[in-house]
């Protein structure tokens, strides 16, 4: 036990004694690990956000299908849908995008009583009358909107809205840039009557397949699309992860540069190290003890590097809102108003990055050290 402690302390001292090398290896580790940890944290955050928004949502989503894309669905079948056995609620929505001055906002038109529970007002009230809207907090902050302020959207200048409330939502990506208004107002804004972008259907558990058959009977001559929660979830995630592939490619490049750098840096001062090992062996150190010392050095340096990388990633995400890296995960980030980047730092990726760092530094040092500690001290001390 004492022996291992002694070696651990000596390993620490050795890292301090070879400061330049320690710093270089640490920097390489940070360069490799930070983007990795940040990327994982963002994609975990996005995943969680989409789960929240989907879980809080309906059981089935009904739209028309045009050119293989979701398209608007007429309201004339709404009453028939509501009558299907097992359907508890059928809520038509309009979800669209429009410019408020130079900022793109997500417009949600939904009747007041159908507002999702995940939307809670922070100030003001829910819209009651025509042309009243509730605005997401980031958007409100950007335009310095106050209760009672009036504005119009670029697509329908003559329609003037009045701000009656501001809301926050659990789902920060969505909530931040949204404008909620009544279904009717949204229809007028986009100039479409008697259609919804989708109908949300809430059902009793276990009835989805029968409902699907009934929906088929209603829409048999139309091209429609009925999606359940899982499919919507996939769809949402796909939207977010659009550019993940590009990120991976870039990461592979930086990785391909960083790894050799680490290997080279770990090998710095190898001839001095060799001599040292020779002296140690001549004065009675066992091969295993030499290797233990070197492994401990790598363990410490990986721990140091990984910890700094994790701290930097947290700073990157929380302090700089994922500048540069976030755009790989949230496709239209430049077109969205500013919002708080969702990110989750889970223990497993952090642990993984630590092991990864250890592996890298070990690969860089152990083979040469093992060779050194098994050759005759006479040769090493030359």
């Amino acid at each position, binding site marked *: *036990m*004492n*022996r291992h*402690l*002694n*070696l651990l*302390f*000596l390993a620490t001292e050795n890292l301090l*004694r070879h400061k330049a090398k320690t710093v270089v290896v640490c920097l390489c580790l940070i360069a490799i690990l930070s983007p990795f940890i940040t990327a994982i944290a963002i994609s975990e955050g996005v995943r969680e956000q989409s789960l929240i928004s989907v879980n809080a949502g309906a059981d089935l989503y009904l739209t028309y299908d045009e050119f293989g894309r979701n398209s608007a669905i007429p309201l004339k079948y709404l009453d028939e849908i509501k009558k299907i056995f097992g359907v508890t609620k059928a809520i038509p929505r309009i979800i669209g995008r429009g410019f408020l001055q130079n900022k793109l906002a997500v417009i949600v038109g939904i009747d007041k009583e159908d507002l999702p529970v995940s939307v809670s007002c922070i100030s003001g009230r829910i819209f009651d009358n025509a042309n009243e809207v509730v605005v997401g907090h980031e958007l409100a902050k950007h335009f310095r909107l106050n209760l009672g302020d009036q504005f119009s959207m670029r697509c329908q200048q003559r329609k003037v809205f009045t701000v009656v409330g501001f809301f926050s939502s659990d789902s920060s990506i969505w909530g931040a840039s949204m404008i909620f208004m009544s279904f009717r107002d949204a229809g007028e804004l986009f100039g479409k009557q008697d259609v919804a972008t989708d109908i949300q259907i809430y059902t009793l558990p276990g009835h989805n397949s029968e409902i699907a058959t009934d929906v088929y009977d209603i829409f048999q001559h139309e091209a429609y699309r009925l999606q359940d929660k899982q499919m919507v979830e996939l769809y949402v995630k796909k939207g977010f992860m659009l550019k993940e592939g590009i990120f991976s490619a870039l990461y592979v490049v930086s990785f391909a540069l960083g790894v050799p750098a680490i290997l080279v840096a770990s090998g710095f001062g190898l001839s*001095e190290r060799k*001599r*040292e090992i*020779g*002296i*140690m*062996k*001549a*004065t*009675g*150190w*066992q*091969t*295993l*003890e030499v290797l233990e*010392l070197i492994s401990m050095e790598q363990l410490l340096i990986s721990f140091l590097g990984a910890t700094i990388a994790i701290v930097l990633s947290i700073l990157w995400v929380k302090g700089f809102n994922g500048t540069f890296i976030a755009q790989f995960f949230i496709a239209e980030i430049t077109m969205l108003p500013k919002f708080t980047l969702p990110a989750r730092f889970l223990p497993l990726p952090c642990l993984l990055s630590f092991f990864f760092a250890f592996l890298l530094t070990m690969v860089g040092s152990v083979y040469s050290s093992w060779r050194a500690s*098994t050759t*005759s*001290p*006479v040769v090493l*001390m030359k």
Partner: protein
Amino acid sequence: MIRTEHLCKSYSHSSQYEIRAIYDINVTIPKNSFVVFNGPSGSGKTTLLNIMGTLDRPTAGKVFLYGEEITPFSDIALARLRREKIGFIFQDFHLIPRLTSWENVAYPLVPRGIGYKERFERARLLLEKMGLGDRLDHTSEELSGGQQQRVAIARALINNPEIIIADEPTSNIDEETSVQIRELLDELKVRGVTILVATHDAMFEKVADVVFKMKNGRIE
């Protein structure tokens, strides 16, 4: 105590010929003796001492220590032997750079699980005996050659070895320190240590019990 039988070490230089560093060495070194190996440069003194001190392996022949043949020992067994019985002093000191004197002296104690305080105390005692009590915290870069060699001697003594092997311990240092070092080694001999020295320094022959003259890898 140490005995060699037909000890040979050769280095194959190219496929055509090989260099015989030492050839057919048969010596017996009794316990608690002061033995000096003398001879011109390249005569094989270092090679012989390294092999007897288990730092190197012979190409042929046998080495016996306390009557036991150690040639077939594993690297682990040889390292243990060095730790328990043998201390080395080298011509160019071989101190670890950027470590202080006392850390260098105490370095062999680290893997033995000896705590910081005891390591420091033992190193301090030895360094004081070497007249370096005021140089405990100096790194080897801050010491003169003679001081470095005395640190190296303290390190060789830290494990209380029964054998001290010194390869030209005085050839890189001034005359005054050389005298000190000769006296130190002699004092160690008085305390029961067996001492093997390779040297050009004729003064060593005065304190030696036995002098082996080497030439072209053989003992004359």
